[in-house]
């Protein structure tokens, strides 16, 4: 028997929240390991509570387990108390499904959703009994892979990963499985290098060791393939039609509390609103809507099977889904599911209408979160989040008029060209929202959540020098002082310290890997957890490794310099991104290409795919990313304010 359960069980009474190590969830698959089967350990490099709801991991878990030549299990990073016991007892990282030791798997594949989990990736590799540096691994060791949004710049992890997958994984995991099955069946020709060479030829798969990196002093000079059969540029994978992939079919239902503990149904993938700070919107193009009928089926069957009373319709901007009101109405009206609440986790204010508000408040009312991202119209033109102040007030008005009393507004600070006036306008917007709420309820409340902006690869802001921690703290301080006596407004912020580490990891090259390893070796795990994050650890690691943080994080980059991710592609033309960056600095917005002519950014044309959208016109209401007042059709018009609100542009 290869299960470690009998050795783990006596340790569990000694650790916090032991239920996160037991597995046994509804929806768990019992994998069939054996000859001819490629075994995957899909690993989320943070705690179970954070990792279990990850939809990407669950989708691949099902797709792999449906294949006759694959078996997939799941692992999550053990918390410090269990890790200490595991190391003391000599217990390796294990799967939750059958408590199988990690070293027995063919592949350990990490989901990279956040840069601050990188030190946990190293820790999990180490706990699996595998050398953290890829070059030191043996032929018999599992292959260490990664997928997820962070793999668009995997260079800081290049020395630790055997391969990374760019883009949608649905088809890529099958291709990789086929290569590995073939290699195993034919006696593992060429050993580890042999299979990595073969993987490098699979579209979307990047094998860092097959590329030679050269430097020109401190500057990166080139990242080039070592062999002629290895592609010079690795292109991302894109699933053409979401209708072909109705996953997860059996979402895992955890036995213990996790974040986003509800049914999640992805209604579309990709977003072309074109917000310039948003990496997800840039790299997941084009928009691919799931057919409304399939959404209804997945919601209905999912609720009945799981017993959840809440469903989230997920996407990067759910109010943009064609016919969203109809889908929400059908969900809350489905008598077979009992009292169901619908949450729309990502709402654009220019597409949020009284109609949607009325539908989602019929069941239990969930929180409402809007993301204006910036305080002034000028700033929003820079970041291309083309919503007017009136759009925001209209959405807030809709919500209050339908009985909501509290809402949350998300903002970024540290954006390109941001002035203190832009920052302080955030406070003004919040105060005006509370004022609107007073006409409907006695004690309206608005929570303002402010995050420090971190530029990401494959966005127009990839050339922007991030604000320093000192500057971000100063800006948060401005808001805090300004809102000190504002009734009904709560300000929340994260200490910007972690944004420095995130910035270093998101736009670093291979030399940053040494810093990550140094931080990990000095006890820096769970860096996403503020109680575990220590900026000094990162700064002293960078110093010890001779890495100049300013050059990576705070310096504005130039068009002619080689970016660490130039040998990878999200389809987007570099000159499109550069033009968009120039437009940003000129405060010029760019409309959504879903409903307007193509700009040839490259995401569709490069791969012979296109938008899959049920409606040829934008949803009614708001300015819909045009910045001008559009006809509202059948929508209830916004009540005109008796006096103009301070700072209300347009």
């Amino acid at each position, binding site marked *: 028997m290869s299960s470690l359960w009998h050795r783990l069980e006596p340790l569990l*009474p000694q650790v916090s929240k032991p*239920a996160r190590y037991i597995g046994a969830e509804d929806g768990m698959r019992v994998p069939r390991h054996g000859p001819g089967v490629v075994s995957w350990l899909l690993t989320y490099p943070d705690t179970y509570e954070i990792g279990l709801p990850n939809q990407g991991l669950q989708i691949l878990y099902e797709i792999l387990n449906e294949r006759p030549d694959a078996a997939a299990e799941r692992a999550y990073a053990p918390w410090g108390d269990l890790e200490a016991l595991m190391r003391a007892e000599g217990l390796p990282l294990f799967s939750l499904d059958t408590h199988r030791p990690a070293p027995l798997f063919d592949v350990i594949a990490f989901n990279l959703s956040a840069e601050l989990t990188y030190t946990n990736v190293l820790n999990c590799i180490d706990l699996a009994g595998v050398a953290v540096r890829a070059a030191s691994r043996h032929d018999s060791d599992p292959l260490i892979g990664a997928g997820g949004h962070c793999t668009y710049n995997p260079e800081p992890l290049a020395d630790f990963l055997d391969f990374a997958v760019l883009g949608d994984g649905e088809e890529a995991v099958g291709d990789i499985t086929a290569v590995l099955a073939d290699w195993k069946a034919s006696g593992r020709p060429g050993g580890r290098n042999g299979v990595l060479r073969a993987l490098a030829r699979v579209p979307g798969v990047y094998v860092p060791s097959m590329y030679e990196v050269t430097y020109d002093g401190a500057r990166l000079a080139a990242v080039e393939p070592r062999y002629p059969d290895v592609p010079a540029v690795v292109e991302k994978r894109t699933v053409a039609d979401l209708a072909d992939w109705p996953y997860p079919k059996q979402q895992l239902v955890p036995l213990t509390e996790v974040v986003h503990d509800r049914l999640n149904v992805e209604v579309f993938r990709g977003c072309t609103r074109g917000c310039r700070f948003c990496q997800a919107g840039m790299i997941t193009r084009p928009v691919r809507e799931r057919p409304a009928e399939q959404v209804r089926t997945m919601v209905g069957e999912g609720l009945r099977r799981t017993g959840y009373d809440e469903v989230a319709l997920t996407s990067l901007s759910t109010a943009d889904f064609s016919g969203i009101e109809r889908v929400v109405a059908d969900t809350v009206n489905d008598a077979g599911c009992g009292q169901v609440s619908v949450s729309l986790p990502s709402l654009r204010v220019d597409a949020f209408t009284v109609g949607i508000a009325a539908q989602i408040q019929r069941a239990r009312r969930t929180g409402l979160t809007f993301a204006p991202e910036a305080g002034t119209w000028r700033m929003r033109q820079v970041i291309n989040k083309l919503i007017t102040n009136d759009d925001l007030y209209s959405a807030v008005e809709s919500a209050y008029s339908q009985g909501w009393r509290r809402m949350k507004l998300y903002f970024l600070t540290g954006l390109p060209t941001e002035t203190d006036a832009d920052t302080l306008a955030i406070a003004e917007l919040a105060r005006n929202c509370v004022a609107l709420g007073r006409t409907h309820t006695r004690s309206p409340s608005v929570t303002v959540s402010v995050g420090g902006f971190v530029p990401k690869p494959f966005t127009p802001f990839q050339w922007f020098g991030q604000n320093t921690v000192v500057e971000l703290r100063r800006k948060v301080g401005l808001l805090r002082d300004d809102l000190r006596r504002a009734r009904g407004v709560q300000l929340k912020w994260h200490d910007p310290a972690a944004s420095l580490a995130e910035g270093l990891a998101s736009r670093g090259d291979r030399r940053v890997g040494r810093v990550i390893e140094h931080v990990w070796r000095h006890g820096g795990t769970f860096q996403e957890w503020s109680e575990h994050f220590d900026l000094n650890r990162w700064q002293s690691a960078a110093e010890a490794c001779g890495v100049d943080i300013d050059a990576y994080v705070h310096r504005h980059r130039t068009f002619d310099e080689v970016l660490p991710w130039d040998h990878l592609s999200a389809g987007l033309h570099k000159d499109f991104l550069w033009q968009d960056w120039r437009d940003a600095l000129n405060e010029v917005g760019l409309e959504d290409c879903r409903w307007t002519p193509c700009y040839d950014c490259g995401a569709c044309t490069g791969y012979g795919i296109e938008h899959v959208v049920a409606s040829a016109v934008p949803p009614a209401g708001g300015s819909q990313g045009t910045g001008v007042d559009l006809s509202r059709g059948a929508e209830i018009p916004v009540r005109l304010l008796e006096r103009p609100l301070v700072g209300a542009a347009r």
Partner: protein
Amino acid sequence: MTGSRIRLRFSKHGKVRFTSHRDVARIWERSLRRAAVPVVYSAGFSPRPRIAFGLALPTGYSSDAEYLDAEIDPAWAAGIDNERLVGALTASLPTGMTALAAAEVASGEPSLQHAVTSCTWRIDAAGADATEASDAVSRAMDGSELLVERERKGRLTIDNIRPAVHAVEVQGNITDGVRLIAELATQPRAVRPAELLASLRPPLSLLRARRLHQWITTDAGERSEPLTVSELSVVGAGVEP
């Protein structure tokens, strides 16, 4: 709507025993919905299903005798066959949790929290063989004080649990230690098996604990279980809904 109050007994064994009391509450809410049992919801801004859980089972302990009271749509409850209900719930529960019995209780009955007075535990412990454990237990039961250190609202207190220890019997040796059967009071404050072991001299360490019974003792001294497993009473008329 006031619902019919249905009392359920269930067991908790295996891996799922590492779930917490709060986890079990969530598991039940989902399982009742999966089994399409129409639980009554509270009124208000954020309606919750009206389910009342009995004594918390410490995380990691197993049990043959867990209870909950759920308020169910009376029309539905009148037409449900209890055995079918128990079967449907077990099918909806995770592996390791089994519904054992169901019965309607009068709405005026005291809550499980108030009604239950003691529990019988099967306790596997390490640190002594059966003879040594019997000596330690005899000394404990002959005395009038059994002191344990407890944390209460962040402060350490020393409590005498002897009055709450009704009976302890050493069953004999097992492969990794010794097995005890103990009846421990739940009021005014429940004594945990681990606390009993820590109070013995020399102290024993807990390997496994399993709740075998919960007891309701009347003022007259009569003892009964909230639901017995052998005698399944029928909810309503026994007609299919």
